[in-house]
């Protein structure tokens, strides 16, 4: 037996022995709770739905397996790519939930690994791995939107500290986060991309205030963050002063692939068919009784199949060491548009029961469907609007003239 097989055996045995029952996905299709509900996001303000969540986090963090491939010196597992793949495969096979999620692992962590100072890595990455710090992202500003580079939050050097003034919007869960990574303008006199710096600061710094934004769906996953004379030590710049645009582009890549990944979560069953079974029923031949609804469900299901095949194609190419092909440019755009279509069609399947907001006579799934439709409207706005995606593809992939 090779070393890797040995590793696989040990890993499987350890996972199976140590993972508490509630940290395993249910095997009954369709009964999985929403992803966010019982996962650990970490941080000082973390609350855990049950003690096993925290227990699992601590056990995994101890082995460095919250960030399996990061160096052990920074709190990671120090695993090779091959070993990390085995770990991930075994977790999937045993239906084990991830011990920790969030921007620390997926965004600021990888950025610090590449661009951070040794001091920054030692300080922040260890905290990330142990789930002791939760991060939020301060990119968008009230008048910037898709035109990220026109941000106006200003930072002026005063001795050893940057003094930051301005406002950020669309900071996901700023109210639950400990630190923010953000872009600020440090030189207003050069081309707008060139005067931007990437800063980290503690959300408890004086001058930081946070206000959740209520969405049309009734949820408030985002905040406005106001910065008034916030003092940030010089050593909390990442990647050098006025080099923030490079950091931003690196991170945006991470974010977009994360978003399309999020929509790739395999469905245990075809939700639209399940809904149609309940609200429309079958005809004597066992077909969904409304042929136009059936046609539209088939269309969206087949679109999803095409997207999944395209993602697989891209992954296989990556495995073979090929550069990402042109197909990878469409993921964010197509995955979000498709999700919009699917949540929108769900209401037509529900019919009048989709009118529910609250009160008597609507069940939880009905209320959720309506809010999901509303929430999904934002998919093609956040992380780069569909229009910006189309502009980018037209230019970079198709080479159409400006």
């Amino acid at each position, binding site marked *: 037996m090779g070393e890797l097989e040995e590793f696989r055996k040990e890993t499987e045995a350890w996972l199976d022995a140590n993972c508490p029952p509630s940290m395993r996905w249910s095997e009954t299709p369709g009964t999985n709770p929403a992803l966010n509900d019982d996962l650990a996001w970490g941080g000082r303000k973390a609350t855990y739905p049950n003690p096993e969540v925290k227990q699992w986090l601590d056990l995994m963090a101890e082995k460095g397996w919250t960030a399996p491939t990061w160096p052990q010196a920074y709190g990671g597992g120090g695993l090779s790519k091959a070993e990390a793949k085995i770990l991930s495969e075994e977790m999937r096979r045993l239906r084990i939930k991830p011990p920790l999620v969030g921007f620390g692992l997926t965004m600021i962590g990888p950025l610090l690994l590449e661009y951070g100072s040794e001091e920054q890595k030692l300080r922040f990455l260890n905290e990330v791995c142990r789930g002791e710090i939760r991060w939020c992202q301060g990119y968008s500003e009230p008048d910037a939107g898709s*035109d990220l580079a026109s941000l106006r939050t200003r930072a002026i050097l005063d001795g050893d500290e940057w003094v930051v003034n301005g406002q950020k919007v669309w900071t996901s869960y700023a109210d639950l986060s400990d630190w923010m990574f953000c872009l600020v303008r440090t030189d207003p006199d050069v081309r707008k991309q060139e005067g931007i710096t990437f800063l980290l600061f503690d959300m408890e710094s004086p001058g930081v205030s946070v206000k959740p934004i209520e969405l049309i769906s009734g949820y408030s996953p985002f905040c406005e963050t106001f910065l008034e004379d916030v003092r940030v030590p010089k050593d909390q710049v990442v990647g050098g002063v006025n080099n923030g645009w490079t950091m931003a582009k690196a991170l945006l890549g991470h974010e977009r692939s994360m978003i399309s990944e999020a929509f790739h979560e395999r469905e245990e069953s075809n939700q639209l068919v399940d809904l149609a079974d309940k609200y429309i029923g079958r005809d004597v031949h066992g077909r969904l009784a409304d042929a*136009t609804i059936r046609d539209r469900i088939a269309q969206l299901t087949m679109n999803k199949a095409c997207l999944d095949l395209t993602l697989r194609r891209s992954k296989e190419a990556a495995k073979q060491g090929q550069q990402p092909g042109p197909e990878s440019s469409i993921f964010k755009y197509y995955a979000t548009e498709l999700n919009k279509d699917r949540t929108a069609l769900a209401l037509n399947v529900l019919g009048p029961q*989709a009118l529910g907001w609250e009160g*008597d*006579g609507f069940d939880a799934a009905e209320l959720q469907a309506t809010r999901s439709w509303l929430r999904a*409207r934002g998919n093609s*706005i*956040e992380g780069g609007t569909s*229009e910006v995606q189309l502009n980018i593809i037209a230019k970079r992939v198709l080479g159409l003239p400006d």
Partner: protein
Amino acid sequence: MALVLNEDQQLFKNTAADFVKRESPVSRLRRLRDSGDQDGFSRELWGRMAELGWQSIIIPEAYGGLGMGYLDLACVLEECGRNLVPEPLISTLLLGANAVLLGGSEEQKSEILPRVAEGSMLLALAYHERGARYDCCRCETRAERGENGYTLQGEKVLVFDGMAADKLLVSARESGAANDRNGISLFLLDPNAAGVELSAQSTVDTRKAAVLRLSGVEVPAAALLGSSGEAGTVLSEVIDRATAGLCAEMLGSMQGASAMTLDYLKTREQFGVKIGSFQALKHRAVQMFVELELSRSAVLGACDAIDQGSEKTAELISVAKARCSDAAVLIAHEGIQMHGGIGMTDEHDIGFYAKRARACELTFGDAAYHRDRYARLQGF
């Protein structure tokens, strides 16, 4: 036939527009929602609408109304739709009063219609049952005939403005299977009668509805509206008229949402220019405009057909509802997308339009339903 408003109608419409603009900006709807108002509308404003004669428009002069037509009513509904005015014109007038007008006895009409016209009585039509989708004759609520009247048993949902209504009109089945058009009767019901339970529903568009549970409710024989077992036909026609009215309201709402979005395209800057100068957005804005113009034609066509008693009325109502449903959803979705992040916030009004658009789409049949109905009516 006329698809263009005459001078009187134009004047009437302008008056309605002024009133709505002054008295009911969208912020009023937001206030009603945020204050948790139980009715979801203002009885005081309802009274002032009555002073303007709005509740009288389609009520015949014999019953204290103005005896005007649906083209006239559409003028008012369109203006109400423009600012998402929540007062219960659809529920009280188009559903409730129409059921009395089309199905009631002379006595019942004389008793109820004048009070609706003067704004002193609110009605709600309880016909829809869970699982019925868009079939107004799907009715499992039972009416058992007894010696002195009827006993009602069953459950209705999405009774629009049912909590606020002074009187309920309830459909119940005397005979036949659940989907039969025949065998359904309509009953006038006091919401405070024994065995009547109403519980509140809030809909996505911040309107109010009710679940109505009937547990052995006794009503006198006089509570029967019109003839026994023949309410299926009445209901179908009532829903058709209400659909035409709802389309007129949707037309107004679409214009409100379009105007808001166009305004944003003309003022919002990105990459140093107005976003309305981006050709892709321009072309999409024109699509919205095209849909709006076609919707206007369809609404006028449907209302004119009702007024003329055309034999094509049902087809034209389906044309209008299919068109308005698709157009409203398009304009709602594009409205949010073109507003970008701000369009996703509850703080911005465009979300109210989007929610109302889909609530209207899913009321009285969505576009696919009406395409199917149209094909059936046209014989294919």
